[in-house]
């Protein structure tokens, strides 16, 4: 029996309302016991000073396979995930071809099993070819294991199609994840519509492009009673709309990315394409509203929107460069900086945002340290000070605006199904290679 005992860590498990220093016993890929334990194990690790949390879950990543394997693969994305502390990731269907049928969903599971690093859950497309016209075969994709549906990369523009999709998906108790952006209002934009875009003469995406679609969808979600999830929320107006909808009982959830909690549109002033993503970096007021939204529970969880792009693509003119930055290997310290260091939330809320909340939204039996749960565990050293070095990323790409940032907090070990799949801490984990 393969057993692992982590001693004297601060065990934070929001799913069971647990936050206390204690020991955690893992055996046969399951959590066995928590508390002051006298049990013996094959392997004992001193967890003093570490946070022991359920394995982190990133419910919004782009793995580029199939189609753009030069930028990322399911295997390389999984490597980046475990290096960043994630034991589960959910990948968006905007691959080439898109994940819009049963076989595509099975393909992701097959490649993830080959990589054998972390759990990879496919999100299926809402419409065939992500074209926004005809519903994709969601029922069959659910059978193959699709955990949610989204046309991410763009929103479902047609209100009638979105209404039908919400109505239909109710049968399967899965969430529809919407990239909220009205295409006509956003037309051709490449950064947030604000003073900086005016100054730079760059075509821009107004906050209302996001808010118009959020408001429309909330009406549709309320009518259908379906589960609706706002992807990468970024504006104060959208946060307020979700807050009000939740208050009146709409089944809505929302996620936010680290960059929308830390950076503003002013970062684009030097035409550096590492600050170009969609939704774009917004105003200071929007950043504050997103932080407050996390703090009061309007925004349920964090996600990275990990979007690898080659250096060749990112060195194009700002208007012509693709949207997106990678995030898996920087998400932990960045959300700590944005939310904990600023005093907006405490550790249990932070952990919930990366574990139990996304697990609930995706309907995963993950994100918990209850006895019997899968032994997906992340060990975090909250005091670890380090410098982000994109050159050492496991992702195939380097497109991050955070290269060189001095940060605090790091996942020092990532345990998936009882196996240590990544560690930065050779002292506590002798004999473990950086990536197994």
């Amino acid at each position: 029996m393969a057993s692992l005992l982590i001693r004297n860590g601060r065990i934070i498990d929001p799913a069971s309302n647990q936050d206390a220093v204690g020991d955690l016993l893992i055996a046969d890929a399951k959590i066995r016991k928590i508390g002051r334990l006298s049990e013996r194990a094959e392997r004992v690790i001193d967890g003093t000073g570490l946070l022991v949390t359920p394995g982190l879950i990133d419910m919004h990543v782009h793995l580029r396979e199939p189609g753009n394997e030069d930028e990322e693969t399911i295997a390389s994305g999984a490597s980046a995930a475990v290096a960043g502390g994630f034991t589960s990731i959910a990948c968006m269907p905007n691959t080439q071809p898109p994940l819009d049928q049963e076989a595509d969903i099975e393909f992701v599971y097959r490649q993830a099993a080959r990589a054998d690093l972390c759990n990879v859950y496919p999100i299926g497309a809402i419409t065939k070819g992500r074209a926004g016209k005809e519903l994709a075969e969601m029922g069959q994709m659910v059978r193959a294991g699709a955990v949610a549906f989204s046309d991410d990369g763009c929103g479902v523009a047609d209100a009638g199609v979105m209404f039908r999709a919400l109505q239909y998906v109710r049968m399967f108790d899965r969430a529809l994840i919407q990239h909220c952006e009205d295409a006509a209002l956003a037309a051709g934009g490449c950064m947030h519509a604000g003073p900086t875009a005016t100054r730079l003469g760059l075509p821009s995406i107004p906050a209302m492009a996001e808010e118009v679609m959020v408001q429309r969808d909330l009406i549709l979600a309320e009518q259908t009673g379906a589960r609706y999830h706002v992807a990468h929320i970024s504006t104060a107006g959208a946060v307020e709309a979700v807050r009000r909808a939740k208050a009146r009982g709409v089944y809505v959830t929302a996620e936010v990315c680290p960059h929308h909690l830390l950076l503003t549109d002013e970062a684009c002033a030097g035409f550096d394409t590492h600050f170009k993503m969609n939704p774009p970096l917004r105003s200071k007021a929007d950043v504050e509203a997103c932080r407050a939204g996390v703090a009061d529970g309007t925004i349920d969880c964090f996600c990275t929107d990990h979007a690898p792009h080659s250096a060749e693509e990112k060195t194009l003119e700002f208007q012509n460069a693709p949207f997106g930055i990678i995030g898996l290997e920087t998400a932990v310290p960045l959300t700590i900086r944005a939310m904990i260091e600023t005093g907006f939330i405490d550790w249990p809320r932070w952990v919930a945002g990366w574990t139990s909340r996304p697990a609930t939204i995706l309907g995963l039996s993950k994100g918990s340290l209850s006895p019997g749960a899968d032994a997906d565990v992340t060990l975090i050293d909250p005091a670890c000070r380090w410098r982000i070095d994109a050159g050492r990323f496991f992702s195939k790409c380097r497109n991050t605006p955070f290269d060189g940032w001095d940060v605090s907090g790091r996942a020092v070990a990532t345990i998936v199904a009882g196996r240590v799949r990544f560690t930065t801490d050779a002292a506590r984990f002798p004999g473990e290679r950086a990536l197994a």
Partner: protein
Amino acid sequence: MAAPAAETTWTRKHLLDLESLSADEIGVILDTAEAFKDVSTRSVKKVPALRGRVVVNLFFEESTRTRTSFTLAAQRLSADVIDFSAKGSSVAKGETLGDTARNIEAMGVDLIVCRHPASGAPHLLSRCVNCCVINAGDGRHEHPTQALLDLFTIRQHKGRIEGLKVAIVGDVANSRVARSNLWGLTKLGAEVTFVGPTTLVPRTFEQFGARVCHDIDAVIGEFDVINMLRIQMERVTSNVFPSVQEYTRLFGLNGQRMRRAKPDVLVMHPGPMNRGIEITTEVADGARSAILQQVTNGLAVRMAVLFLCNQAAGG
């Protein structure tokens, strides 16, 4: 004359925008241009300041007057000039801007004059190459030499910039000329009013020191200078105004409006003009018009810019 006598406090090898320049730096360019102005009127229209230097016009967008003006300016400084246009080049085959520029630089080019439809393209270029980069217009961002020649022309007529009231009328939202003029004029102490339809003159510009107005008739009597921008006919399809005729009625500069302007108002236009649309022939060719002088002054200003950047690069 080998070099102008202006006190040089110019240390930049690139001219990417006016926003980042100080009033003093703009003054250095204008004074240097003053010194170059008489070169064009001499029988031998050349000085040897850039002899042995190579200037490339790297134009990714159609342009006749700016390209010609830069070519002549470089030739008057005795530089060798090559033209590179995106049409039929490797750009059409998918080469990136950085690669194109590095390839051209590898042929021994000293200064790149770049026009590009994307805002920020010259900034990207300046990070890719070692030679000087001069922005000849990037997207909707800036057109620094146009604004400099506008400043030069205003100073020539009014003797100063400080304290003047300048109207810039038209499609400000999409205009690089308007942005560069805003920075240049406000840094030198003028007061800028942007005039045009609400769809083309966003209030955001107020944050950068411009006054925003949507009724030309209400304010036309205030200005010392009126700079009319070119209206792009394509804008009608994007619903920023319903018809060219309506635009002309509301914002066109005609003889009737001119009668309510200051008697010594200076009328400018960056060209190319749509006669009968944003400006009538009567006004464009009238006594208050400085439109052709702008073109003439463009040469001296571009000579100054080429000269100063080359000198700062150690040339």
